[in-house]
């Protein structure tokens, strides 16, 4: 069986640079800088959480304070998430993300919809009359 983190046929140099090794669960784990916290923020209710950037802090409490000062001191957010980088699951394996075979048949652009759409519209129009 292959080791979990070893991709097939791609040399280490071709992989995107990742910080440190991942553990069995895919977490950056001890390979990541434990003092770095990734910060996400929501600009207004209903918006998705977006990555804002990161801060360096010795613990969770100060990380929250610094996240607030760096990414929301001018009322830019209604919610923030602060996550230790060591807890991030990192997926950068080219076998999983960038396989070499042609995938164009998986893209919606592979189907020509225009004519079918025209016919469907016409049919819907007739039904309405």
């Amino acid at each position, binding site marked *: 069986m292959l080791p979990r983190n070893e991709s097939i046929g791609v040399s280490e140099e071709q992989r995107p640079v990742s910080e440190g090794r991942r553990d069995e669960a895919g977490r950056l784990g001890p390979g990541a800088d434990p003092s770095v916290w990734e910060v996400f923020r929501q600009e207004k209710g209903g918006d998705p959480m977006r990555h804002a950037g990161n801060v360096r802090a010795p613990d969770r409490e100060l990380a929250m304070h*610094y996240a607030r000062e760096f990414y929301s*001191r001018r009322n830019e957010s209604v919610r923030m998430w602060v996550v230790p980088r060591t807890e991030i699951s990192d997926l950068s394996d080219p076998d999983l993300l960038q396989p070499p075979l042609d995938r164009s048949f998986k893209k919606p652009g592979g189907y020509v919809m225009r004519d079918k759409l025209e016919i469907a519209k016409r049919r819907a129009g007739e039904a309405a009359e």
Partner: protein
Amino acid sequence: MTTEARRPTRQLIEPDLPAFDASALEPELRAAIAELLLSMADDEFVIGFRDSEWTGIAPMLEEDVAFSSLAQDEIGHARLFYELRCALTGEDPDRLAFHRQPHEYRHAQLLDWPRQGWAFTITRRWLYDTADAIRLAALAHASFAPLAEVVVKVRREERYHLMHLDAWLERLGTHHGQPRGKVLSALKQLAPAALSVFAPLPGEQVLVDAGVLSASMAQLADRWRSDATARLCALNLRPIPAGAPPADGRDRAQPDESFVWLWNEFTSVARLEEGAQW
């Protein structure tokens, strides 16, 4: 820059400063509120400039940004308090902030101490913020509505400041060795001086009788001592010593050397050209 056609050099913080009729207040009460506002404005103004001395040299980049932001918040609070006072007295907030002589400032003597090291700064700031929190709480339901309104807003920011400062006091104060030793020695020097925040104010009784201030400064000092001591003891640090607030806690007939230095710094631009517009 021109001194011709002088327009007001500043804009009021319109949304933050409620409109009101100053003439509806009894002159005695109006003077007492003005005195209270000046003491609070000067406190926030001086601590704001003290903190801004750390810009660029705080222990780490993140703290540098955070602490500078706290300093800006305090200057913002000072601005509100100066403007509210000036709405009562008809003075010019800029002149009040930047054009008085050192002996005319009314901030607590606790804030005269120079910045010194990081542990000293954190300890002083924690003492001031805990005392300020007690004072603000005593004004939250002031019968003079514009003050109560401003205090509600300021308290929401001060809550965060206190969390930030308390986090640092805990880390330094419980870290055995040098940091804890420095906090202990700063507390020994500063805890008695912190009572100056509660120095009696001229017209204080008028404020209490009119329901502006919910208790006398001496009572607030006791409240603060008991709260601050509980927290300090939880961190295995020294309690606040007994004692009444000093009557001259805001007097500076002989201004402290360190404050005169700071005053020279924060008035240096304003003194460059009288009446200049920016």
